[in-house]
């Protein structure tokens, strides 16, 4: 076609940002705000990556977000909120009403509790449910505060803390950060039942308590309980489009439907990128929102520029889960259905090793995290209806052998099982009210975001690969000059907040490099 040649992009950019997910959007916005000439390239036709929405019939569904971490009320703003507010987005966020409802379905584990936000209210409730647990759980939260102080201190020193100060003032942080949740909870003597309640948030990490790093887990639980959880009023597509608008207003350029196929490297330095549209763009700086797994195995060109250690790092790490989501537009209200809560964690039990194992085959997982969106946003769907989404997960590899001709039947069977579990656990008659249904599988994740093998939860945050060692080693684990990563595989592990903040860090590191090399006008 004659025109497509003229449509090619062949200019020079200070920075090319690959991918408009949470990480890439913030990186692009921050760089644009600081007057760098940037080009943001996204392979899909929408911004957001996982942070998006889609319309079916009368409903606009949230694709992924259950709860935004570290947002906080206007009187007690969290880091994520302060970061996003910097861009003065025309986008509203609303508070989620309660922390969660945990329902365990195994007959000998039977539990059904609603947990509130607020440390004191939470402690009161857990004491009521598991008498004698209050003090040990309080210590758990105290440790979280110690860890917060420690990470703030490390942040203030720009990653170069004084070892003596750490030892003297932040010993609780030092002494726990190499351990699993189970190790520390054993040391704290938290009673079994209280642990079941306290560990319900494990679904947001999906690594068993025997392996998951204590620091990341305790910070997450404490952050949610202390500051509450928030969601965008008009789905994630609203704030990601607000970011798109702001990036352009700040002079950044965005191209959708444009896949970066090659990051060109010469003598260990980034020199440009090439895209699926035949664009050849010169740049010495790439901020990459695609995972290191994809970048080193697929994007770096020529392959001889990939150092052996980069492959080794990827192969040593464990890829996290992919998700399975059933999106339901129901023609009854949440009240009519008896869905009283926003967030339901419904598992067979709280043996997280067993639950994790249930994600490792094509049987229906024993874990689900279900949202009734109208409980946070009453008018998110037309009068007389409500939106429910059921999220579960699979370990990478489980779906590998599924054939296209079996795919629809398989996903429907798993969806039906998950709906049945929800019906039994809550008593809500879901099936008879389905007006719209959409089911997303690991294949769907791969299709829309190109995430490697459909992986959503980045690399598993075991202690040796949790955010503390990742931040401590971020300078030595950089292998190509001019290449920074950001997003859910990044320095803060996965999740919206982590990916957003990681985008800011990647932007600042790139900026520092630009300034040091005198490349910025």
């Amino acid at each position: 076609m004659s025109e497509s040649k003229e449509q090619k992009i062949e200019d020079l950019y200070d920075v090319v940002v690959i991918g408009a997910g949470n990480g890439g959007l913030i990186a692009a916005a921050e760089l644009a705000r600081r007057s760098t000439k940037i080009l943001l390239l996204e392979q899909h036709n929408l911004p957001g990556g996982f942070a998006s929405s889609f319309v079916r019939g009368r409903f606009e569904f949230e694709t992924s977000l259950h709860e935004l971490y570290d947002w906080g009320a206007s009187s007690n703003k969290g880091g994520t909120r302060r970061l996003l507010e910097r861009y003065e987005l025309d986008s509203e966020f609303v508070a989620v009403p309660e922390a969660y409802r945990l329902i365990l379905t195994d007959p000998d584990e039977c539990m059904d509790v609603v947990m509130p936000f607020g440390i004191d209210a939470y402690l009161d409730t857990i004491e009521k449910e598991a008498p004698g647990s209050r003090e040990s759980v309080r210590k758990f939260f105290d440790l979280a505060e110690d860890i917060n102080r420690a990470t703030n201190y490390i942040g203030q020193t720009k990653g170069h803390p004084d070892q003596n100060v750490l030892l003297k003032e932040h010993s609780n942080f030092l002494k726990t950060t190499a351990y699993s949740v189970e190790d520390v909870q054993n040391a704290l003597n938290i009673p079994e039942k209280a642990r079941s309640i306290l560990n319900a948030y494990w679904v947001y990490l999906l690594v068993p308590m025997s392996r998951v790093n204590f620091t990341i887990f305790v910070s997450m639980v404490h952050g949610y309980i202390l500051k509450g959880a928030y969601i965008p009023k008009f789905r994630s597509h609203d704030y990601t489009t607000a970011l798109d608008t702001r990036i352009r207003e700040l002079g950044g350029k965005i191209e959708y439907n444009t896949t970066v196929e090659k990051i060109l490297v010469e003598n260990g330095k980034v020199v440009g990128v090439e895209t699926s549209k035949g664009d050849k763009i010169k740049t010495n700086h790439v901020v990459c929102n695609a995972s290191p797994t994809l970048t080193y195995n697929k994007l770096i060109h020529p392959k001889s520029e990939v150092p052996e250690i980069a492959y080794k790092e990827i192969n040593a790490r464990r890829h996290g889960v992919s998700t399975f989501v059933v999106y339901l537009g129901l023609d009854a209200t949440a009240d009519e259905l008896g869905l009283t809560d926003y967030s339901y964690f419904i598992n067979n039990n709280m043996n997280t090793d067993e639950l994790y194992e249930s994600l490792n085959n094509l049987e229906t997982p024993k874990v689900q995290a279900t949202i009734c969106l109208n409980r946070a946003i009453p008018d998110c769907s037309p009068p007389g209806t409500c939106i429910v989404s059921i999220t579960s997960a699979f370990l990478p590899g489980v779906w590998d052998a599924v054939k296209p001709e079996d795919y629809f039947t398989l996903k429907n069977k798993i969806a039906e099982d998950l709906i049945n579990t929800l019906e039994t656990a809550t008593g809500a008659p879901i099936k008879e009210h389905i007006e719209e249904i959409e089911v997303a599988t690991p294949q769907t994740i791969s299709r829309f975001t190109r995430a490697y093998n459909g992986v959503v939860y980045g690399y598993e945050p075991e202690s040796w690969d949790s955010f503390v060692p990742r931040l401590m080693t971020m300078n030595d684990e950089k292998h190509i000059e001019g290449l920074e990563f950001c997003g859910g595989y990044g320095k803060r592990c996965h999740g919206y907040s982590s990916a957003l903040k990681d985008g800011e860090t990647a932007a600042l590191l790139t900026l520092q490099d630009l300034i040091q090399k005198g490349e910025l006008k």
Partner: protein
Amino acid sequence: MSEEEKKFDIIVKSNTRDLFAFTKLVPSRKKRFEKASSEPITTDPMNELAIRLHPLRQYLVISEIINETKSTKTYKLTPDPNSNTNQLAYFRAGQYLSLKVEVNGVTITRPYSIASSPSDALKGFYEITIRKEEPGFLTQFIWNKWKVGTKIESSGPEGFFFYEPLRDLKQIVGLAGGSGITPFRSIAKEIAEDKLDAKLTILYGSSEEDDIIYHNEFKVLEKKYPDKIKVVHVLSCEKVTLEGCELGFLTSDIIEKYCDVNNSSFFICGPQIMYNFVEKELEKFNLLHKRIRREAFGEIKEILSDPEFPQEVAEKIFKIKAQIGNLTKEIPAKATESVLVALERANLNPPSKCRSGECGFCRSLLISGDVYISPVSDWRKAGDKKFNYFHPCASYPITDLEIKVPRHL
């Protein structure tokens, strides 16, 4: 918090072991890396599955042309291995393909329902049935040019017009008009193959007897599966020789006569005027939303008949300043044609699939100016409305515009 307030000192294993564990954190990480394999990862199975189910493009070749009626032909399409399409994407009966056709040097797309069954795709073919329209920009061209051996570029299977067992009732009522029968042929075949556990009654509106598509084929299916498949012809002409058919249009009386209205899921597919008519008729039954599924009907044909369209601009031709990639071009655009059509006429090769406002594939940014969007084809997300993103296939220029369009995938 100050040091005095600090409540306790944690000991996980023992004080020294805990601190030692911390100092070992980074070295043990390095050791893990050193020990790991340095093999690159060369496969991505979910990406491979995604490409098989949702290929960006399928290169097809016409292997057979069947004359159905005086104005319709069925094209059998097989993969074109010379263009690296070796197998066809599986699909759900009722979905469509967006075909890309170059007509007189201008590239456009059109959606066509797949009329063959999903298992036929595994055997290596799709069938689509096309009615020649008057005047018909594209269909006239197809009639003249498409021969056995002609190569055609297609999207993967698209759309949401399919039976969903978790939502729909086992009794499907297809309300079809004209070439809107095509997706029902796919559904009927899947039922006949015992791959879809449902029953299908089709009320099929045609204007003349010799306009009925698949007449004999459905006769055979009805005979073979009398409890599962039934077709009732509804003819709007005066003289009829066919037995057992109804005269007139798809009225509530006819629907009631052949269907258990309250225990059926209705699927509508046909020309726009039929939707308006049928939906009025269905209103009488007060059905729940979920019991009526509609196929997207393509571009609005007569935007002037839309009561909310600003009639005063009807005759106008506006200017659109379109950015696409690095190119900025000023192009003319009639008020009565969608922005997408203007972009296609200018040969800018914009993305598009459903041409009905629904799929969002053509989503573009409205930098300045104003468009008219009919409420029936406004499927934009809340955020897109707020930040001026729009779907060119369902938007009509009512002032000069400046827009940014993504390049086609």
